[in-house]
């Protein structure tokens, strides 16, 4: 067991800003279903309808719709000062970090800010920012006619650095860039920083922005005949030890029981074995009976897309309910795993008993990761 708990969180995406917005959307989609014996289990809902996104961009798009928050305006949340040069990924992430601290009722001040850090997951930072910068070197009259103020946006740690500036987070500040694995890798990184004693608490999250660049990647690299809408989200969770300083928040609502990762060189069957091994190790470390794991949240999309579910079930020895996060929220790359955890925490009603869930992730090259989380639903939701 990692001995690390979640004391608050936020999701910023198509549903809006904050846990309540996501919970509302999931309630409408009937993700939590009561059973005859009085428990509540997760069920896979129908995906939300993507919205028209043409007002977000000037460039041509492969499709006119996506899972984006079209009216997101960073100034409405953070004001104008310091935000004017944020790219969209940075804006989503910084808003989510602030909202997670607020949700946790964390008291960040000069006595503890060196003990609070942040780690965010990404695929390649803002593809739009880097590609746009390169574009300027090609199309401007002189190749150096780029905007120096935007240069930091081309670096992948921009969002984490800006979150630190905005909230005065002087502890470990990191960015993990492993695409579909990035959120679970960020959880591992953040939990390690806490358990090794480098910090007392970490904001752990992942972000992807909607942009024409990502929409075209989705379109050009997706499976033929199966167009998944492009999604965007930032999800951020405040993590601290089970026994922790008061300032990190009074209400633990979930415990990260185990985090594992493995690589299957070349993908395919090697990655199947890697993921099965991950889940097996996670179950062992969590010290739980696999039958108690009633839901698996994967990054999968279509019903026949089982390259996470099948290897996971092979390790669990049964077939829990599956929620395919990319089907629910569109292709969200690095943010996928964070949406999985947010869905788990937002879905169930307050009276439900503690529940175990498994989160899985897999990258095309053969990277795999798994997490087992115990949620005490409603353990702090009231009054937030």
């Amino acid at each position, binding site marked *: 067991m990692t001995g690390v708990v979640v004391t608050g969180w936020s999701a910023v995406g198509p549903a809006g800003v904050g846990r309540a917005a996501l919970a509302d959307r999931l309630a409408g989609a009937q993700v939590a279903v009561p059973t005859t014996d009085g428990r509540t289990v997760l069920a896979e809902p129908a995906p939300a309808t993507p919205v028209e996104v043409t007002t977000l961009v000037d460039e041509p798009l492969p499709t006119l719709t996506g899972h984006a928050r079209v009216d997101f305006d960073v100034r409405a949340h953070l004001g104008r000062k310091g935000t004017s040069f944020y790219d969209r990924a940075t804006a989503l992430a910084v808003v989510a970090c602030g909202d997670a601290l607020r949700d946790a009722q964390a008291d960040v001040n000069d006595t503890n800010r060196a003990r609070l850090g942040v780690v965010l997951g990404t695929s390649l930072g803002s593809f739009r920012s880097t590609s746009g910068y*390169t574009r300027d*070197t090609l199309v401007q009259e002189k190749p150096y006619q780029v905007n120096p103020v935007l240069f930091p946006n081309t670096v992948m740690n921009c969002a984490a*650095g800006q979150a630190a500036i905005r909230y005065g987070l002087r502890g470990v500040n990191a960015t993990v860039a492993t695409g579909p694995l990035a959120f679970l890798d960020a959880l591992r990184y953040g939990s390690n920083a806490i358990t090794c004693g480098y910090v007392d608490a970490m904001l752990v999250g992942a972000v992807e922005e909607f942009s*024409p660049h990502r929409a075209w990647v989705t379109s050009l690299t997706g499976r033929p005949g199966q167009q998944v809408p492009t999604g965007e989200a930032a999800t951020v969770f405040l993590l601290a030890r089970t026994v922790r300083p008061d300032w990190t928040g009074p209400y633990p609502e979930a415990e990260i029981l185990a985090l594992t990762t493995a690589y299957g060189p070349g993908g395919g069957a090697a990655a199947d074995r890697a993921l099965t091994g991950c889940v097996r190790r996670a179950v062992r470390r969590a010290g739980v009976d696999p039958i108690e794991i009633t839901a698996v949240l994967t990054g999968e999309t279509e019903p026949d897309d089982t390259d996470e579910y099948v290897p996971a079930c092979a390790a669990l020895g049964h077939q829990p309910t599956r929620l395919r996060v990319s089907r629910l929220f569109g292709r969200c790359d690095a943010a996928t795993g964070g949406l999985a955890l947010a869905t788990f925490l937002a879905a169930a009603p307050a009276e439900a008993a503690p529940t175990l869930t498994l989160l899985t992730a897999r990258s095309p090259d053969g990277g795999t990761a798994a997490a087992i989380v115990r949620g005490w639903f409603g353990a702090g939701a009231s009054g937030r």
Partner: protein
Amino acid sequence: MNRVVVTGLGPVSSIGIGVSAFTDGLRTGRSGISPISSFDASGFPHRNAGEVPDFQPERLLRRIDAARWGRSSQFAAAAARLALTDSGLDPAAVEADRVGAVVGTTSGESVVVEAVTAQQVEGGFDQMDPDLLGQITAGRLAHAVNTELELTGESLTLATACSASNYAIGYAYDMLATGEADVMFAGGADSVCRWAHAGFYRLGALTADACSPFDRDRSGILTGEGGAILMLENLDQARDRGARIYAEVLGYGLNCDANHPVAPDRTSIAECMRMAHRNASIKPEDVDYISAHGTGTPANDSVEAHAILDVFGDRVPPVSSIKSMIGHTMGAASGFGAIAGTLAIAHGFLPPTINWSNPDPALDRLDPVPNTARTAAVRVVQNNGFAFGGNNAIVLIGAVE
């Protein structure tokens, strides 16, 4: 807690590929700077960089097909292959799922991003090559190492900009110290690219011909590239297999300025040094040599030097910057610094700061090991790495006691 040692080194650099060529480059104060050839730099006022034109991935890589991986991934995989060879480890003798890779980077697969952007400019978004789009994600840097060496353990890319290799070494140290892994390949990789060249030029941080850290007239960085990977394992295992042990990783410190996106912060950097010393259980007077971040910009070198003076008081060890030789290799920079520091301990010499002509009166207590390598007994090295976003990371490396 296991003790963690360095047993393999894999530099792919502009002053040498492989540990002996790189060591020779450091000892002789070689410059790896040359006119840019990887992109058309003719429209730029400054046209030099620390490219690695001699890098022939197919000559170093055994398993991965270079055509399917971007240049930064190739650097990472080739550097890891060199580190494994250098270590003498028989991969069959360790459990593959207890062996992993952590690779730091600033710009990831920047050359691939630039290639698809050129296609986009030329023919529109729909003309971007799907195969290249499959290569743009930064996670492939670590994945390339795992694929090349058939490692089934961790595969993590850390994108904490120009201190990323120190983050990677630090995380690998934790994985080994806590027993989560038995062997880790850690370091960084980056490639010279147009956008960084343009951005640093416009920030006023790019110099023309020669990078001269800590010189009175220093005028900026030169962009550089390469792959720098160290093979780390726990001390007991290294002794059991009779490995040649270069040095020990003593610990590391990370913090964040939380102040400005690009300007370094003296107080915060000094605090990071103290934190690293505490985590490594050493005192400032134990440090024999500082492998500086030393970018060669007026601001960085001044802030870094003053932070060093704040922490070390009246006993300041020699401080040199290998960026004078290889340029600023971005995410690989502190990996090269760690390799240089390891070699300093193993061979008893201080790598020089080349291109140094005039003392900076504001830094008169600093010894930058000017121009010529120096023989010295080195027990403990402090390897500095700082970055955009205020991401400070410092690793302490020591002789094995």
